[in-house]
């Protein structure tokens, strides 16, 4: 058994005394694609933010490669664990400047061929490099955001509903890109998804969160089975998000 790439041990997060995550424990193996699903407010985004330390987790509750993340230099940790947000924000400037953002933070330049390679990795043509980032469509922007994150050579990608704003065609393209990166580079993916269909398409293993706790964890087919735990959460949960999922 390989040692886990990412391991959560009894993670608790509260905001203003209100518990958001309650005792989350799971492990993700190197190169695994793990889907995270659950109704809105179940704590999915908070979980990703804690792993990226955009929120401070308690000591010894999250380990990457066996090391407590609160003991690692946070800027290095964030280069190792890339994060793609649900709502894409582009920095002012060109696509190339956006992709080179992390390099510019370290006062180094990203070579042109590396930018081309990253654009190619997210299925965008090289001519995109010179385009102003605010001119991109939703799907293009999401892929540029992905290329921008890949520029730091992350080993783990945290994906917070990366396709929720995209049309079906763009959604498929982003999915294919991510799965290819997983296959070719062994990139570990922890992927919050807002649809059952996507979870079925891309994941093997799924974790179902509900009210800050893990309700179920296992193979996609088992958790999403019509008589399985996901249906039970659906039956109890009230909310727009979940109703769109069930339809």
């Amino acid at each position: 058994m390989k040692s886990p790439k990412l391991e959560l041990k009894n993670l608790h997060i509260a905001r203003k005394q209100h518990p958001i995550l309650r005792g989350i424990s799971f492990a993700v193996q190197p190169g695994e694609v793990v889907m995270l699903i659950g109704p809105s407010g179940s704590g999915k985004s908070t979980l990703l933010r804690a792993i990226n330390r955009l929120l401070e987790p308690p000591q010894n509750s999250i380990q990457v490669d066996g090391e407590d993340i609160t003991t690692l230099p946070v800027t290095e940790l964030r280069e190792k664990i890339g994060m793609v947000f649900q709502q894409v924000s582009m920095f002012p400037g060109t696509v190339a400047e956006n992709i080179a953002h992390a390099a510019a933070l370290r006062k180094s330049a990203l070579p042109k061929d590396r930018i081309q390679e990253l654009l190619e990795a997210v299925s965008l043509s090289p001519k995109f490099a010179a385009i102003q980032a605010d001119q991109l469509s939703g799907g293009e922007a999401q892929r540029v955001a992905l290329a921008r994150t890949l520029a730091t050579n992350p080993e783990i990608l945290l994906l917070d509903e990366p396709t929720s704003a995209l049309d079906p065609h763009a959604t498929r393209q982003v999915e294919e890109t991510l799965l290819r990166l997983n296959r070719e580079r062994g990139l570990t993916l922890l992927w919050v998804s807002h649809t059952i269909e996507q979870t079925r398409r891309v994941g093997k293993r799924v974790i179902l969160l509900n009210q800050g706790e893990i309700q179920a964890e296992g193979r996609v087919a088992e958790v999403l089975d019509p008589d399985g735990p996901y249906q039970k959460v659906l039956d109890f949960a009230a909310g727009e998000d979940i109703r769109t999922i069930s339809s």
Partner: protein
Amino acid sequence: MITLPEFPLDGLERIGAAAVLILISLIISRWREADLEKDLLIATVRSFVQLIAIGYALEFIFNLDSPLWTLTLLALMTTIAGRTAAQRGKKIPHAQWVALASIGLGSALTLGILVAVNVFTFDPQTIIPVGGMVIGNSMSVAALVMKRLANDFKEQRNLIETSLALGATSQQAARPQLRTSLQSAMIPIVDTTKTTGLIKLPGAMTGMILAGASPMEAVQIQIVVLYMIIGASAFTGLTASYLTYRQFFTPAHQLVE
């Protein structure tokens, strides 16, 4: 020595005669149904009482000629300015301290430099009115910077966190917002300085000419006042932006909620 021009009226008679303009304003307000009569009267009475009171206070302190009293009055002015500016940054944790420290530091540094390089002497007649100008200006700058930053940190949260997630330090991630806040505070005074004398004669100069100083004397002081206000804006703006920024980020480069 400044010789005062001869005015036909003096004291209360003069103020009373000028108040004819208030009377006209009241009539206009009533006639055009602007419904400002009550506010106008309150403003007139308040300004009269406040200024007469400060006149007595200043005479008292000028006569004492004590550095301790001068500093006490400056500290009091700074405190009031701090409380006022903090109103604009209510969403900022410890807004009172941020405003007070920015205004205090910006004003102290500006006045300190002016005294150190012998532009002004530290006597109450000079330092209190000059200090009032510096502190008042610093108050507007601190309020602008705090309001702008609190707003931008909230509205551009996603962009800032995107940068943090790419490995930026909090200072790197907040740099665009810090720059904009300082610009927003400095641009008005830079623009005013550019057009000064072309559009209207600035207040200090007008006052000096009315009090009998020669135009060249008045201009000299006015130039010093403009430089002083630019300096105070820069110091206060920088301090306010740094201190506000510190309230929004943790040592682990996280943007607080």
